[in-house]
């Protein structure tokens, strides 16, 4: 840093971002957070002290030049800022909205040691939104075509990221998506009020401009197998099929009418627009009182959707608030809107009416015991503490596993005990030559940005592979596949 520069006074408080009023927003599906104005963005950007060793970049799984894009906002070069972001991240408007910045870039921000960390996520969102609003989206100059073709299976965060990275490297990329709309979990899982579909559409458009081809309603594993892709002339395949296998609680009564997996509930609402029924044809049944089991981001999304569909909405979680995996901001949003929280409670039974509908949950009170494998204190049921909790709808949001369709229809593709594809975390290499994987299908349910980070690494590896410079360690004939798998 230039030592002649006058020392700036640290501004400790971050700029607030305006949000829709809780009373209003709990009744509509419009976006909750409204974003910064130009002035607010500049004031917030000026708080960045441009440290010599920017830790924030290390905190970002896709290595965005964070001080760089913030500096351009300080200089009011908002378009330049958006382009700086897109050098590393093709989906900034999405990441600016759904990334857990508080656990990543903002967690390590130096300003955060004295006051509030720089609102990196909000600034990212601002720059990306500015570019979209102005309509001046610039496509980088692409290298000469490599003549290599890559099939990307799944169009969620991992698939979109790797498609754009590989396209920018000059490869011919086709995305295959099983649903009729692009975006994977960004489309079916994240509600309109947290990620407007128009934002997603714009980022997908950017991919199309990069030359990425998209095949929708294409179920890989049924319509075409991975091996067939390799025979069809694709030089490599990336599998990013995500964690799309709903887990249930395993308690009696959970197949009663009125019990939804979070995936189904959110798919009906977000992808199929059940909140516009009967104008849209897909219904969702929501009783007067809804209980969502779990306290992750998916649970918050489901609880807030239920509220917007007119229900009294409750979150039921077996641990305490401190252990809740959801982002703090989302818990606060939910609470402000009127979602009610019940900590240290777990369902042991779903009770039904004589005609097969949910009428109540039997809940047991929990206490926190010793820490378990996850490092969190283990919830222990308190004997004899069962109570009945009247509800008409239950949404189970206790996590999801890897979608089994591709692994179960592909030979020589190893999966672990949980059904996740075995892949090298550094490269995405699987046990099958030419096939790479990343995101939730490898890690189990995680975050958007971690999936994107894995895709970024896999893109580099695939690029090397296509150039003949990648030495496979899992599929190399010298390494026995079993020893590679046990690592």
């Amino acid at each position, binding site marked *: 840093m230039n030592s002649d520069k006058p020392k700036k006074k640290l501004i400790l408080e971050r700029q607030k971002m305006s949000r829709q009023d809780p009373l209003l927003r709990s009744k509509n599906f419009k976006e909750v957070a409204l974003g910064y104005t130009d002035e607010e963005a500049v004031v917030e950007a000026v708080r960045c002290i441009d440290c010599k060793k920017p830790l924030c970049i290390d905190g970002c799984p896709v290595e965005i030049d964070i001080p760089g894009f913030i500096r351009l906002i300080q200089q009011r070069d908002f378009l330049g800022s958006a382009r700086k972001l897109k050098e590393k991240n093709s989906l900034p408007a999405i990441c600016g909205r759904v990334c857990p910045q508080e656990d990543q870039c903002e967690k390590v921000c130096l300003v955060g040691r004295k006051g509030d960390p720089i609102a990196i996520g909000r600034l990212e969102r601002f720059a990306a939104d500015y570019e979209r609003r102005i309509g001046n989206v610039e496509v980088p100059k692409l290298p000469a075509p490599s003549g290599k073709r890559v099939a990307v299976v799944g169009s969620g965060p991992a698939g979109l990221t790797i498609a754009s990275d590989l396209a920018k490297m000059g490869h011919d990329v086709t995305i295959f998506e*099983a*649903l*009729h709309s692009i975006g994977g979990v960004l489309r*079916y899982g994240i509600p309109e009020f947290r990620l407007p579909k128009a934002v997603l559409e714009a980022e997908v458009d950017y991919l199309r401009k990069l030359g990425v081809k998209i095949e*929708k*309603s*294409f*179920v890989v594993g*049924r*319509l*075409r197998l991975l091996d067939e892709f390799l025979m069809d002339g694709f030089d490599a395949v990336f599998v990013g099929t995500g964690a*799309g*296998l*709903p887990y*249930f609680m395993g308690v009696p009564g959970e*197949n*009663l*009418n*009125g019990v*939804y*997996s979070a*995936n*189904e509930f959110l*798919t*009906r609402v977000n992808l*199929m*627009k059940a909140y516009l*029924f*009967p*104008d*849209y*044809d*897909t*219904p969702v*049944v929501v009783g007067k009182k809804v209980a969502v089991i779990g306290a992750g981001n998916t649970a918050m999304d489901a609880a807030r959707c239920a509220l917007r569909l007119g229900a009294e909405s409750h979150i039921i979680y077996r641990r305490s608030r401190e252990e809740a995996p959801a982002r703090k901001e989302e818990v606060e949003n939910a609470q402000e809107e009127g979602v009610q929280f019940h900590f240290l409670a777990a369902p042991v039974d779903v009770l039904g009416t004589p*005609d*097969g509908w949910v009428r109540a949950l039997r809940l047991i009170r929990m206490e926190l015991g010793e820490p378990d494998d996850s490092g969190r204190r283990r919830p222990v049921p308190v004997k004899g503490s069962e109570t009945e909790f009247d509800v008409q709808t239950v949404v189970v949001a206790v996590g999801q596993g890897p*979608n*089994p*369709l591709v692994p179960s229809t592909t030979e020589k593709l190893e999966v672990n005990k949980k059904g996740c594809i075995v892949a090298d975390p550094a490269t995405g290499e699987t046990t099958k030559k030419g096939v790479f994987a990343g995101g939730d299908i490898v890690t189990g349910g995680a975050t958007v940005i971690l999936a994107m980070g894995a895709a970024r690494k896999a893109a580099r590896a695939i690029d090397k592979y296509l150039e003949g410079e990648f030495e496979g360690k899992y599929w190399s004939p010298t390494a026995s596949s079993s020893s590679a798998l046990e690592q």
Partner: protein
Amino acid sequence: MFEIVEKKDLHETICLIKVTAGLIASKALPGQFVLIRIDEKGERIPLTIVDARDGLLTLIFQKVGKTTVHLGTLSKGDSLADVVGPLGKPSEIKKYGTVVCIGGGIGIAEEYPVARAFKEAGNYCISIIGARTKSLLILEDEMRAASDELLITTDDGSYGVKGLVIDELRKIIDRGKPISLVMAVGPVVMMKAVAEVTRPYGIKTLVSLNSIMVDGTGMCGACRVSVGGKTKFACVDGPDFDAHEVDFDLMIGRLKMYLADEKRSLEEFTKKQAVHS
């Protein structure tokens, strides 16, 4: 894409359409299904692939809810927004010996490709098809061609033998000739009844479950059924399951989940149709 190239009314309430879907048609096997969506606002519904050849899928549906009624108003030249598939595990076709194929109502459309495949695989194929009344009996000629013996029942006795398909099934069992496999598709109560008839004899019995579905790829869990006390997804684990293990009562309950919404949706659609015509 997905153009309707042929449409035939098999009955006032039952339609046959042929849709262009080259890749799907080249892959489809007996027992598999597709999910279709008519337009942007439409829901995704599963329909069995009755036949797949020359790049065309043959689909047969009964007009019961808004989507199927809407589908029935489309004509040759119209297109569907999406056809996705082939989904589900194909039926296990091999030489079993004597196979009894049972189709009830619209379920005959689902039984037909399986029966044909069983016969082609060298099985002695006895088929029983039934409907409420003669006019609702579909694919009689096709089933006859796909079977070594064809038995027909109607509830009202207007055609074939008056009675239920299980009555004929009992007669076949009573003949004493060993039956290797019974495969039944139709209303859930019928499939349940078939399971109860074969259970005491230990005859392997399969049913194809037509659960409510949304994505059809194992992602949402809407189609879950209880089989052998375990939760299974009809879209990826099925649609064929061991009839003696299926919890049919639970399935009957789950199929009723959207009755009120379906009624409302259909009423709105009929109202709109009336305004337009």
